[in-house]
C-alpha cells in the first residue's frame, strides 16, 4: 500500500501535466466553441479511435463498425481530412492524418446554435453548415459542383444496393441538376452549358430548410456543479 504519500516529484509532474492539459483544452474550447468538459469527452473518444496515438488516419475511421452501413461513408471520412473544413477559407487539399484540433474543428460544424445567439451568429453558423455539405459534394475543390460530381454522390446513395439501377440513379441525378439549374439560371438558352452549382446557388436552393436542428448533434454536458436549487435565471 503506502500510497497515501505520493512521491513529491511525481506529484509535481502530474500537476504540471494537468495544468498544461487544462490550458490546452481552454484554447481548444475557445477555438471550437465546445465546453471544456465536452472536449475532455471528445478527447477520450479521439484516443479510442486513434489507438492512443496523437493522430487519426483514414484507416482508423474506416474501421468503425457503425459507419459501415452509411452510404456516405467515404464522403464523411473525406470530410474529416478536408482542409476546407478547418474554418480557414483559403486552404484546399486534404491532410493525411488529423490531430485533436482538426478533429474538433470538424465536429464543431455539428454543434447546435448557442441558446441565445443573435441573428448574425445564426446566419454564420448556418452558412458554415451549408459549406460543410457543399464541400462534401465538391470533391475537386474548385468551388463548383458539376454534374459529374453530383451524379457521383447520388450514385453512392442509391445505386450500389441494386434496387435502383445505374441508369435510374443517373436519371435522378440529371433531373435534380436540371431543377437546380432552372431555379438558379432560369433564362438559359437550351444550348447554354450550365457549369455547375456554386455555393451561392447551393445556399439558394436550401434557403427555406430549417437545418439548425437537422444538422446538429446533441453533445451532452451534464455539469451538475452549475445547477442550482430553485429557478434558473432566464
Amino acid at each position, binding site marked *: *500500500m503506502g500510497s497515501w504519500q505520493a512521491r513529491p516529484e511525481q506529484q509535481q509532474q502530474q500537476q504540471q501535466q494537468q495544468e498544461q492539459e487544462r490550458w490546452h483544452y481552454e484554447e481548444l474550447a475557445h477555438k471550437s466553441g465546445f465546453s471544456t468538459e465536452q472536449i475532455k469527452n471528445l478527447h477520450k473518444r479521439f484516443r*479510442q479511435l486513434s489507438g492512443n496515438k496523437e493522430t487519426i488516419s483514414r484507416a482508423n475511421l474506416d474501421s468503425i*463498425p457503425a459507419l459501415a452501413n452509411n452510404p456516405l461513408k467515404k464522403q464523411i471520412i473525406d470530410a474529416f481530412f478536408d482542409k476546407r473544413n478547418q474554418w480557414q477559407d483559403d486552404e484546399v487539399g486534404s491532410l493525411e492524418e488529423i490531430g485533436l484540433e482538426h478533429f474538433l474543428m470538424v465536429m464543431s460544424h455539428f454543434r447546435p446554435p448557442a441558446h441565445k445567439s443573435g441573428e448574425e451568429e445564426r446566419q454564420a453558423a448556418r452558412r458554415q453548415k451549408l459549406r460543410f455539405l457543399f464541400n462534401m459534394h465538391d470533391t475537386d475543390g474548385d468551388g463548383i459542383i458539376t454534374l459529374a460530381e453530383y451524379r457521383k454522390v447520388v450514385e453512392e446513395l442509391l445505386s450500389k444496393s441494386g434496387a435502383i439501377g445505374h441508369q435510374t440513379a443517373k436519371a435522378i441525378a440529371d433531373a435534380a441538376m436540371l431543377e437546380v439549374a432552372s431555379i438558379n439560371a432560369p433564362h438559359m438558352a437550351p444550348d447554354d452549358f450550365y457549369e455547375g452549382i456554386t455555393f451561392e446557388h447551393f445556399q439558394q436552393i436550401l434557403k427555406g430548410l430549417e437545418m439548425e436542428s437537422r444538422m446538429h448533434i446533441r453533445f*451532452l454536458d451534464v455539469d451538475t456543479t452549475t*445547477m442550482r436549487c430553485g*429557478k434558473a435565471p432566464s
Partner: protein
Amino acid sequence: MELFFNPFDSLVCILLGISFTVWFTLLLVFIIVPAIFGVSFGIRRLYMKSLLKVFEWATLRMERGAKENNHPLYKPYSNAIIAKHPTSLEEEIKEIRRSGSNRDLDSAPEFEMSDIFYFARRGVESIMDDEVTKRFSAEELESWNLLTRSNYNFHYISLRLTVLWGLGLLIRYGILLPLRVTLAFTGVGLLVFLTSFIGLLPNGRMKSILSEKVHLMCNRICVRALTAIITYHDSENKPKNGGICVANHTSPIDVIILASDGCYAMVGQIHGGLMGIIQRSMVKACPHIWFERSEVKDRHLVANRLSDHAQDKSKLPILIFPEGTCINNTSVMMFKKGSFEIGGTVYPVAIKYDPRFGDAFWNSSKFGMVNYLLRMMSSWAIVCSVWYLPPMSREEGEDAVQFANRVKAAIARQGGLVDLLWDGGLKRGKVKDTFKEEQQKLYSKMLVGTQEDRSRS
C-alpha cells in the same frame, strides 16, 4: 439510591430538552421557513458541490491505489458523449423535406438535396459514439458508484474504500435519514391538516389562493425532505389554466418535483391507507380528479371527466403521465391515447435525473412504495432538471396517436437520455435497429416504391 440518580437524571433531561429545541429551531429556520416562502439559502447546492469534490478526491485516490496494485477495474456505467435521435430513416427524411420545401406534402417523396443531411449527421454520430467501441472505453471507477449510490451489491475492493463506504452509510442512515423522515412527516401532516381546514371555507377566490399556497408549501417541504436539487428551465412555458400538462415518468417523485413549482390538478386512482387520506384531504381544497377503482376501467367515463375539467378555463392544468401514473399503477393503455384525445393545449414537460447521484427509477415489481421511498431518502441527493417545453396542440388531420408521438419526440429530444417507454400499445411496430439494415436499400426502396405508385396513378 434515588437521591443519587435524581440530579443525573434531570441533567440528562435538560440536555435532551436543549438538543431537541436546538434541532427543531434549526430545522424550522433553515428548511421549513424557506419552504414556506419559496426562497433558498443555497445550502443544498453547497452540499452537492462539496459531495462531488469529496467523491472525486476519493475516487482519484482509489484509482491511483488500484493502478499501483494492478487491481482490475471495470466500469459498468460510462458517460455517453452525444444523445442520439431515436427516429427512423423515413420519419427523419420526411421531416427534413417538410421543413425545406413548400410543396404539397402528399406528393411522392423524390430525391432531394436535403436528404443528404440525414446521412451526414448519422455518419458523424457514428464516428463520435458507437455501441461497440463504447463497451471497451475508458474505465470509470466502481468505487464512484459505491460511494454515490446506496447499492446493495457491495464487494470488497480495498480497505480504504470500505472505510469510506461505512462512513457514508453511517452519515446517510444515521443523520440524513432521520432528518428527512422528520421533514417528510411534517410536510405530509401539514398538507393533510391545512387542506382539510381550507376545505371548510366557502368556494371562492380566497379558497383557491390559499389552497395554492398550501400545496406549494407542503410540496417544497417534501422536496427538501428528499434533498432534491432541481433546476427549472424555460419557466416562461409553464402550463396555464385549462391546459394539460404531460410529462415523462420515471419515479413517483416526479409529482412532487413538478408540483413544487406550480399548481396542478392531479389525476389518479383512490387508494386506501395513508395515501387515501392524503388524497381525500387534498381534494377538499382543490379539485383534483380521483377515480374509484371501478371507474378506472371505464375509458369513456375517464375521458369525459378529464375533458370536463380541461374545458373549464378557471381550473388548474391537469397533470398526466401518459405512461401510466405511478400513484395508481393502472395499465398503461388507459391514459395513453386518452390524454391526447381530450383536446385543449398540451404542455409537455421533460424531467431528467442526473444518474451520478443515484438511481431514481422505481422498479415496482421489486420494491414497494415504502421501500422505494426509504431508498430515496437514504441516498445522498436527487439531482434533476425540468424543462418546460412550448405548448402544442393537435393539428388538422392528425390523429391522437400521431399527436402523442409528436409530443413524445419533443420530450425525448429535450430530455436527451431519458428512454421513453411509450410504445407499448401503438399499432405501428417500432422499427427495430434500422441501422442494421442496409441504409441504401431502405432509402432507395422508399424512392422506387413511390415512383411506382406515381406511374400507377
